[in-house]
């Protein structure tokens, strides 16, 4: 039996418009870490030991030696690890045994990077948050075009947008439509 080949949600998309660039980002895994009841201190300590860096405050992300970690909810974080391993949740679980519950989330999200000088002009018609005022450490769950998304600011005019994989086509169509509207004036 031949091996199954993995596909990315946007098929390696890379598009350049006047002042806006869209690019699918790949080559990482997302693992959710849910902190076990009463284990916050142990979790923070183990996290520092395993990955270096501090845990982010709500609405923020920090950098670790394996990639970004984003606060995603009460006692929950998403680790964006540069290591590509579809078993990463299992691989990382041992030191967090009884401290945190790890779940692979990579396949649930279609990640896209949007950048360029007109990024904010597009995103202000797409996402309800005050992104212009954000700092390059902020990220959160929000909605875009009736789709629940994650938005992360990684540069002054660069964002990572994560849409549910099943909605990736409709998400991209909506984004394309808005870019077209913004650029046509």
């Amino acid at each position, binding site marked *: 039996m031949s091996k*199954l080949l993995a596909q990315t949600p946007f098929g390696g998309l890379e598009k350049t418009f006047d002042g806006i660039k869209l690019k699918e980002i790949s080559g990482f895994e997302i693992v959710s870490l849910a902190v076990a009841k009463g284990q916050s201190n142990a979790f923070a300590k183990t996290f520092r030991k395993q990955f270096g860096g501090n845990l982010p405050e709500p609405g923020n992300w920090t950098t670790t030696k394996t990639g970004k970690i984003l606060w995603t909810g009460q006692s929950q974080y998403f680790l964006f690890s540069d290591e590509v391993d579809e078993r990463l949740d299992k691989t990382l679980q041992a030191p967090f045994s009884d401290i945190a*519950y790890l779940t692979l*989330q990579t*396949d*649930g999200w279609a990640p896209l990077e949007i950048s360029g000088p007109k990024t904010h002009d597009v995103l*202000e*018609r797409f996402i309800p948050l005050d992104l212009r*005022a954000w700092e390059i450490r902020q990220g959160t769950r929000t909605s875009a075009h*009736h789709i629940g998304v994650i938005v992360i600011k990684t540069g002054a005019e660069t964002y990572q947008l994560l849409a549910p994989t099943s909605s990736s086509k409709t998400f991209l169509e909506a984004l394309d439509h808005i870019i077209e*509207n913004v650029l046509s004036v």
Partner: protein
Amino acid sequence: MSLVDETQKLNFTFDGKAYQGHAGDTLASALLRSGVKLVGRSFKYHRPRGFLGAGTDDPNGLVEIHGKDVCEPNRQATTIKLFEGLDAKSQNRSPSLGFDVLAINDWLSPFLSAGFYYKTFMWPKAFWEKVYEPAIRRAAGLGRLIQEPDPDHYDKGFLHCDLLIIGGGPAGLMTALNAGRSGKRVILANDDFELGGRLLSDPIEIDDAPALDWVSKTIVELRSMDHVRVLDRTSVYGVFDHGIYGALETKTDKIGAPGARMVLWKIYAKSSVLAAGATERPIAFPNNDRPGIMLASAVRTFQNRFGVNCGNATTLFFNNNNALSTISDVQIDVRSGRYVIDTSGRKALNSITLNDGTEISTDCLAMSGGWNPNVHLTCHKRSRPVWNEERACFLPDTATLPPEMIVVGAANGAFTISEVFESAVTASIAMDLNPGKTPKTQGPNFEIQPFWHVKSKKRSWVDFQNDVTSKDITLAHQEGFSSVEHLKRYTTLGMATDQGRTSNVVGLAVLAEATGKTIAETGTTMFRPPYTPVPLGAFAGAHKGQHFKPTRLTPSHRYAAENGAVFVESGYWKRTQWLQRPGEQGWRDSVDREVVTTRSSVGICDVSTLGKIDIQGQDSGKFLNKVYVNTFSTLKPGRCRYGLMLREDGIAMDDGTSARLSDSHYVMTTTTANAVSVFRHLEFARQCLFPDMDVHLISTTEQWAQYSIAGPNARRLLQKLVDQEHDISNEAFPYMACANITVCGGTRARLFRLSFSGELAYELAVPRRYGDALIRALMKEGEEFGACLYGTEALGAMRIEKGHAAGNELNGQTTATHLGLGGFVSKKKDCIGKVLSQREGLIDDNGLRLVGLKSVDPNQNLTNGAHFINDNDPRIAEHDQGHMSSVAWSPELHCYVGLGFLKGGDKRMGDELWAVDFVRDHHVKVKVVSPHFVDPDGERLRV
């Protein structure tokens, strides 16, 4: 001082006739420059009308803008920025503006007073809706909708600021400058396409130079600040809770232009400054509605801003000294005791007659009855304006206005430029902004002597847009409609696109006089959003056509589409309904083939849409005991169990299986439809009901591509994909087993031995990245078994044959008892909904029970929704015995089978009764049977 660019000519048409205007013109100014004074017909009497105002205040010049095969009605010509190729047409006239047969209404006016329709067209009653109202609406009205889809694009967006300044006149500009210089994030929303407000129209000097110099300098400085955003042509139409303001930005008036024609902004502002200016009001004197009779401020605007002379002989009729800057040949100051008592000229003003008998030839009468501050947006904050006797106008009530909104300039009754700047400075200080240097201005103080209307037997118009005269108002009072709110509804005063900007206060004054009260005692109506008209398309934004709502695609979508799939919407999902193969004549052919193939060999169905929730934590089992009616804490790792979940009120909420992958890890499956609501319910239970439990939830619906592989050959097919180290024999991996495995040489997977179809079946899940590859591998390896992909129709037919409840049965009205699952409810533990599920009416022995149904005559089909009636009972609701919830053709049994809820159904096996369907006029005699039509003992599941 004209602001139009005469070097840039723009061609346009009005009622099919070609004209030329200039860049910087509105349609109104371009028409007036071309000598067109007659621009519309009035609402009811079809009287000839010209422009009264020059901006959003104008009630008369409503036109249609035409594009290819479509048009937009009810646009104010005074707010349309002229563009090359503009095709505008007048409205509410037949056959033409110059000759309108409905002008006969004007001759019939004695019969057409307020309330005429309600009093007259009363008999026969049935005629009102079908005959009278359509006819009246055709004769009296504004523009007409063409009832075609709007071809244009709209966007919606979100803006954020410290300070939203509403209005780009002197008060708004000054406050914006102070806020900008103080480092605030400012949005300045100006509904005009030029900044400056009245400074564009009035010959005012600021700092010893023309006011426009100050405007230009201010604009340059504002636009140079990164933290100040100027939104041109943006009208703030509403104020909502939590500091949210609705604003409509018009990018172009042109229909069919590329990109978004308008953008609807939701502005989140910490505070706002209302600098919306004021609207000049007319004076109600007999025949005051002829083309050529205009507000004095409009005459100045056309003259000074657009370089258009509104008449050869202009007469000024006024009651306040603000009007004196209007260039005129004759001045009639009501304060001298003289006033206009009549006018003449059918399609354009010829002359006016004064109370002293003087007749004056004039083709332009500029009138000014004072100013109405534009307080509308303060009312959206539930602040009710208060009457100011000295200024003769309603002012915002600062006592009830929330502190996050400050009103400045003419909107707060500052009617001279000095007062405007003073109010902007005062507001700036109040907001801790650097007030800067106050510009130097000169001018007399504002003085006014209220003068509302001229008593006469002739008609004096108060509301030009709705054809409401002062006589209508006194009539309303005579008939008992003396409250200002009743007056509005009875006469339509203040309704429609201009929202009574020019008419409201005059109307109130006339009413006050009729009732013998003061205007302060009479009060004013409340203004509600929208302040300016907003096209419905703008509210929809980009959410139309393919963008109306998001879609969710399954991992097998591409493969299914390549293989003849017909898709069905299930929430946002597009699921495969069936797959049509060559030679199949209709959907039944395809569905029957899919069922037969699955039951005889193997079929594959994408079940990724089912909700998947990973539940982890030491208390996961205890938690599931609380949310399911049956016990899960005793489930052994590596095993699955069917579970039924109740709402708090005891009604069945959802069902599905939960698998225990380890001591502290379960995977719950929900129905597709309830995936979100179940997750929300679980989160509520986790956070609010059982906060001490160590439980964590995360949706993995999107993470895993999951396929059901069902049929006698399911295991043989799977064995070709599952890596050899995993034994999936019946002994090693029995019914209701689950495990983490690998497939296709090491790909991570989850395997569950579950069946919805009633066959030997598995559900195989892989990370979604492999979803497309896996469906192709399954279909390729399944070729030797003749495997088929099946859709939701076949899935539905098989689950009905098997007697499994689904959405039609879990319809928010049924309990575990109704579903025949009463025995599932554990007596040893409590769970959400348990107590209320035991309410008397829900546990009646003769209550509804899920049963199977077959037609007595096997050739007859069953219909969903039919109601059961005993054989000899009348077919009326009182004898209703229950209803059919699901039906399907059973390829296995070669007849229709149905599931339904029947009173005492569990005790009525073998009974015959009628399934009565009055909707389809189809009544079938049915036999009550077990709901398990196929393999009632479940032997196929366990082989």
